[in-house]
């Protein structure tokens, strides 16, 4: 009888051969399975509807590696990645992929802000996250001796969907560059956004002043495009921000208030820390995980894929049409705090009205 590991490997090979992605499967000593995917070129697609017009952008990135770890011992699946070839403009802003954290140093090995280590993809609220949940459930049930035939049939369908979705993740541009950075922002070389405020989000004393400034600006300038209301309170707001608005807000806020925080935090600040919930840390197999090696002779880092060496390298920029659209948005946490502030004001107002009556 086939073991789950064998069933998984057979199906993984079948699916990857069908969708024609280059791959390498490694069975780990502890029984886990690592699948390394390699894309020589990826066309990043963005289909965005703005004022009823569909804006299509296609950008090309080179040498993308995606590592999928099927952890069978403590059932879970992890998806991380990096690239080995960077254009100069990508390097300037630390761009690897729209759904991977930015890096700040190309030469630091094994640091979370270096491409020389694998970082987790942001999966947000996507089909892929659902696929992982379902696949994990099936793997768990196997070890609880509850694996029934229907689950095995489901596994075949799920793996097909999973790899379709992984491929889709590789090819999807970020709309607003949140929580990381979109390719559109790399091209525009203009990274000022309210995202930059995220370093003060956890500092409550400064935060209240900042929120007041932003809230006043948004209301006074009529920038709320759409309000979604649930149970009488605001659930979400869609803002109509432009680059000018972001600049104005940045100018209005007295950044001297944040000087201490800036000094203490901006150098080491990493936006990813705010996004713990976009990662799954538990149960990751750290043992001998890295696929990146340092060449002791020349000091260069490389990935060995199917017995071919892929060294980290920088190439010249190529001309790319700047037929793009930047969507400015608030950092999701900041947006939620603003919504809560408005709702609390509403509640207070309602209470006062009730007392009057």
């Amino acid at each position, binding site marked *: 009888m086939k073991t789950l590991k064998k069933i998984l490997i057979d199906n993984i090979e079948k699916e990857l051969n*069908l969708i024609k992605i280059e791959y390498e499967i490694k069975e780990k000593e502890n029984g886990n399975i690592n699948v390394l995917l390699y894309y020589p070129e990826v066309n990043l697609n963005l289909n965005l509807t703005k004022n009823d017009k569909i804006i299509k952008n296609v950008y090309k990135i080179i040498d993308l590696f995606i590592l999928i770890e099927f952890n069978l011992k403590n059932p879970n699946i992890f998806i991380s990645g990096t690239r080995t070839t960077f254009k100069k403009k990508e390097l300037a802003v630390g761009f690897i992929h729209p759904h991977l954290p930015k890096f700040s140093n190309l030469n630091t090995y094994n640091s979370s802000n270096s491409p020389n280590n694998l970082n987790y993809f942001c999966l947000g*609220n996507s*089909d892929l996250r659902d696929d992982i949940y379902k696949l994990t459930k099936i793997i768990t049930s196997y070890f609880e001796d509850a694996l029934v035939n229907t689950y095995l049939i*489901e596994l075949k369908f799920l793996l097909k*969907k999973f790899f*379709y979705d992984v491929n889709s993740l590789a090819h999807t541009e*970020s*709309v607003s560059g*949140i929580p990381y950075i979109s390719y559109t922002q790399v091209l525009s070389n203009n990274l000022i956004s309210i995202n930059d405020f995220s370093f003060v989000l956890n500092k409550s004393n400064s935060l209240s002043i900042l929120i007041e400034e932003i809230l006043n600006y948004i209301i006074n300038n009529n920038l709320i495009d759409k309000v979604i209301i649930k149970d009488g309170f605001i659930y979400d707001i869609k803002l109509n921000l432009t680059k000018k608005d972001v600049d104005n807000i940045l100018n209005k806020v007295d950044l001297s208030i944040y000087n201490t925080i800036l000094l203490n935090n901006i150098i080491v600040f990493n936006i990813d820390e705010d996004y713990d919930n976009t990662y799954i840390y538990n149960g990751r197999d750290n043992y001998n995980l890295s696929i990146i090696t340092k060449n002791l002779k020349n000091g260069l880092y490389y990935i060995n894929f199917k017995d071919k060496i892929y060294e980290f390298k920088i190439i010249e920029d190529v001309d790319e049409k700047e037929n793009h659209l930047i969507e400015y948005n608030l950092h999701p946490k900041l947006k939620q705090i603003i919504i809560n502030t408005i709702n609390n004001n509403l509640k207070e107002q309602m209470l006062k009205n009730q007392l009057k009556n």
Partner: protein
Amino acid sequence: MRKIQVYLNSLDEIEFEDNTTWGELKKYLVYNKNYPSAVKALDDNSNIYSNDADKLPDGNLSLTLIIEKTNYGI
């Protein structure tokens, strides 16, 4: 009539006529089986059916439905 295995959140099996399109099957699943409207279907060989006019192969078939919820970030 042929059998089509359909997978979205769970596995389902329906009987459906031969010589039909992806659009016709999609309509049937939405109106008769209360499925959410999928944008694509993948068959066993990972052929993609995404346009309503795409003809489905005749005979028994297995299809994985794709909704395409791709909000990895914003």
